[in-house]
């Protein structure tokens, strides 16, 4: 892949992930209590820690999204984006494997579909693209 293509791919991926993260954070920020219940439903954290996550993660998503779009802290933001996508992938996968019949809470806190193979594939795609963005960004830095 030549450098011009790499550059454009980085721009598209940064803007894409940035918009995605900001979009995903809005409903969670507006409904923190409902989001805390969704986090608790994954049965990884207890009731108490789920509330802390509900206070923290939506703002981390929004901040990471904003920095991605603004091209600030280029390496750190793509790493954070990749970490977030990996965490989401792991959470969704473990819920599916354990047979938990829960809502994803990925973009909206209410009315979203339950977790299934399609949701895992979606998260796998995001994680793969996030990793690609890390690789491309690091090459660009080099």
């Amino acid at each position, binding site marked *: 892949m030549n450098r011009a293509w790499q550059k454009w791919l980085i721009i598209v991926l940064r803007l894409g992930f940035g918009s995605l993260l900001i979009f995903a954070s809005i409903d969670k920020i507006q409904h923190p*209590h409902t989001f805390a219940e969704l986090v608790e439903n994954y049965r990884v954290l207890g009731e108490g820690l789920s509330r802390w996550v509900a206070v923290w993660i939506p703002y981390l998503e929004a901040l990471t999204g904003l920095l991605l779009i603004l091209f600030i802290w280029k390496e750190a933001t793509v790493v954070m984006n990749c970490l977030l996508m990996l965490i989401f992938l792991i959470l969704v996968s473990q819920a599916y494997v354990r047979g938990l019949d829960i809502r994803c809470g990925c973009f909206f806190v209410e009315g979203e579909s339950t977790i299934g193979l399609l949701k895992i594939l979606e998260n796998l795609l995001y994680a793969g693209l996030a990793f690609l963005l890390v690789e491309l960004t690091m090459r660009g830095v080099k």
Partner: protein
Amino acid sequence: MSPSSLIFKNNTWKIGVRLTIMSLGSLLIGFLANQFLNRGIHWKILLLSLPGTSEQTKWHYVSTDSAFSIFLQQEVLFVDIRNREDFEIDHIPNAFSLPFFSYFNNSEQFHQQNRDATFILYDLERNSKDVRLVARQVIKDKFSSVYILRGGFVEWLDRTYPVEGGHFE
């Protein structure tokens, strides 16, 4: 060796610091923003959510039938933590309205109650998490005799025990 691993070698420290700033910064922003959001997670709720705090609580559960017996003797104050709209429609007679979100934001009105009195807290649902949180905070606020209506208002209605509604002070 992949490009990212090469860069990580040189930039690990810088990236690590920035990741930490992003993480702590977003936690701080989230914490502060939730204090101002209408239905945010108040700092008191977060403190009560820390591991180990549940061990300090000393509330007791009371069954719906027992609560009704106590209700007939009029020696207890029922505290309804549902939102005000629901409270206005119907509630246990003479219950005090203490909406979940209001209590954590402004509990002055409730603090005027007699601290030696007996309180039975209830939410709509059975085993409500919200009512347990309020009970913890009420106990922290030095109210000594705190009970939770285990079956919630739903079970009270199922038993066709008396309710009143239509007014709110």
